[in-house]
């Protein structure tokens, strides 16, 4: 616990001993040590697929992470393979003109999968435009997810079905929605944990600050999960922040921060798993920064060669989350060719679903423009709707 002198008594004395105090007691560490990230990122499986020796995993007192159970790892690996397949399939569909745009998470699939798997059914997830794979891993219909990117409508899935917020484009705005969902649940006494996602660039926006502070002040069970993929479109991390790490922002809000190897699915499951557990128990929000890399361009419309060297991409290829996990699980005897091919089949099913779902042009109804603006259209909108109908029928007539 940080002490202050008699003139400014420690703030923790001003406040009722919260559950952070509980965590401190449990872990036997100071408030600063709890809130600051461990000095190293947490990594359990090395890029070549080997278990990292315990004393090199980056853990330290109060920042210990047991390895997740075998079954959990097996399930996660399956989702990882599917996630990669989804990214590749969608990029292909964009090239074929079946979709307007796709921000791929190729290379970040471990983050995507861990984000989905660490939550329970009643929990909520708030994803960005890049998190399609996470949304699908949470059970949302893949073709519905693609509605936004094929351009049929702004959103294709019902957020209430799987408790997944809309894919937010205005950066970090969704973190506040996550805070609100958690707050509402807390007021009703529900044990909902909310995972709120954003990128490294997005941490610079004012809403990031406001969301973290609100969550901390109201002690809400929100995990802020930052995928630090090193770029915001063309802008590298060094132009975004000069902090020791993005996880170092946590202490400024009075919450715990941690860094994790974002290409190590095992470490991600461990760190996010503990974060969810702590949050559910009432420790308030946590900030988890995952170090990963956007292997492809920002979207298909972007040309990444304008702002980064190929060599950097090659370097990160060697840290691929999928290859690493495959080696690790195979070496552990949790994976063999039979399992691999069963998983590959499942991935093909999803890919086929996407191909099929996006193969035909859905017809759109122009009157949808007016139907959903309000819970029922105003007289002005009815007038405008009639105007459009009239125009379209005139057009029809002259055809």
């Amino acid at each position, binding site marked *: 616990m940080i002490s202050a002198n008699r003139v400014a008594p420690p703030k923790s004395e001003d406040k009722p001993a919260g559950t952070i105090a509980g965590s401190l007691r449990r872990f036997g560490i100071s408030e600063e040590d709890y809130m600051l990230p461990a000095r190293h990122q947490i990594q359990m499986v090395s890029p070549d697929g080997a278990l990292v020796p315990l004393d090199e995993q980056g853990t330290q007192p109060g920042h210990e992470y047991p390895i997740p159970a075998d079954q959990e790892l097996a399930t996660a690996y399956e989702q990882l393979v599917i996630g990669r397949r989804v990214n590749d399939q969608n990029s292909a569909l964009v090239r074929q003109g079946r979709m307007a745009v796709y921000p791929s998470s190729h290379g970040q699939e471990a983050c995507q999968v861990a984000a989905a798997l660490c939550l329970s059914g009643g929990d909520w997830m708030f994803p960005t435009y890049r998190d399609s794979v996470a949304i699908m891993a949470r059970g949302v219909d893949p073709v519905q997810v693609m509605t936004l990117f094929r351009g049929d409508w702004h959103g294709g899935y019902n957020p209430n079905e799987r408790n997944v917020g809309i894919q937010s484009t205005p950066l970090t705005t969704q973190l506040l929605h996550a805070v*609100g969902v958690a707050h*509402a649940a807390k007021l009703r006494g529900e044990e909902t944990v909310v995972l709120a996602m954003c990128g490294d660039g997005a941490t610079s926006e004012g809403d990031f600050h406001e969301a973290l502070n609100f969550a901390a002040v109201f002690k809400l069970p929100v995990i802020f999960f930052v995928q630090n993929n090193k770029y915001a479109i063309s802008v590298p991390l060094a132009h975004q922040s000069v902090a020791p790490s993005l996880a170092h922002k946590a202490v400024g809000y009075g919450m715990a921060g941690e860094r994790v190897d974002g290409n190590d699915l095992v470490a991600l499951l461990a760190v996010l798993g503990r974060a969810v557990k702590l949050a559910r128990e009432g420790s308030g929000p946590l900030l988890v920064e995952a170090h990963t890399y956007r292997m492809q361009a920002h979207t298909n419309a972007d040309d990444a060669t304008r702002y980064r060297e190929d060599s950097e991409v090659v370097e990160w290829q060697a840290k691929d989350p999928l290859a690493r996990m495959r080696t690790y699980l195979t070496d552990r005897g949790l994976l063999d060719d039979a399992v691999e091919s069963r998983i590959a089949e499942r991935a093909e099913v999803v890919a086929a679903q996407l191909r099929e779902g996006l193969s035909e042009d859905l017809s759109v109804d122009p009157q949808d423009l007016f139907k959903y603006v309000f*819970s029922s259209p105003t007289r*002005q909108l009815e007038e405008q709707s009639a105007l459009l109908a009239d125009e379209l029928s005139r057009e029809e007539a002259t055809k």
Partner: protein
Amino acid sequence: MSATITTSSEANGNVSAATAKAAARAAASEGGPQSVTLARAINAAMVDAMETDRAVIVFGEDVGLLGGVFRITDGLTKTFGDQRCFDTPLAESGIVGMAVGMAMNGMRPVIEMQFDAFAYPAFEQIVSHVAKMHNRTKGAVKLPMVIRIPYAGGIGGVEHHCDSSEAYYAHTAGLKVYAPATVADGYRMLREAIDSDDPVIFLEPKKLYWSKDLVDLEVLRAQHADNVEAGTSSEGRAAVARPGTDATLIAYGPSVSTALAAAAAAAEEGRSLEVIDVRSIVPFDDETVVASVRKTGRAVVIAEAHGFASVASEIVARVQERCFHSLAAPIRRVTGFDVPYPAPKLEHFYLPGVDRILDAVDDLQWED
């Protein structure tokens, strides 16, 4: 001062007329009409809504213990506890963004922006999410939330405390924008805003907070209950605040009382002006406005906001489109000038006042 408005808007039957049942209940009520401020009426609306529905919660800056800088939320924390009326950290985007999430998850937040210009930090949340969530999810996500904004001038406030910001919201598709002008409407329209499944920007003319009117809150309560039962409401209905025959003054919010004062002055000079209280900017009641202008053939639109690209511009555009052949003169606007809201000692020159309105009426080409 606004008794006329209320009375006439009751009288003309356009606005949620009391049903027989409510009237009976009112007659039975001990109290009868009392002198009530707009502040009190708005407060009562929140109290009643919170009593009716546990999902209604109130938050913002200083709204808890202090009861808000205008004391509009006075007593709510005491009555309903600090889980249902509470202070937030000082961050408007945070307040609105959190309200979006709460509304997504079963609550009906009623949030306060401390002053008009201090809602601007929340502009992205309001325009890009509050206004669009229902539409982008094809109605799967409803966003029943009310953003209360004390707005407009006339209180001698320093800069940023007197903006008339309605045009920003009215121009944004997906927001409803209410602008009550009377004490009764303060109660009635806020209840309806809270009941609405759509997000409502609720503009409270701060210079009228302490203006009083004879109203019977019991009657308003009863009317509201009856309307809910019957599935009716006053949403989107304008009111004839004062009937007249020679020209129409169209106003809303803080300008209605000015328009009424102008009409009273004009009456002394033998000119009969009809005053329309727009009440709901979005949705807009073309019917009532058009009927009046078709009848009088002349119109002046009055609003405090800068005139350029404003709600007043919209009203002129709509009315000329719909009443062209009834118009004996161009529609005039009496609005704030296109200058930043001035310092206290100059606001008098900025605000549309009775004289400026009467000058505009005089200019309506009466000799043609």
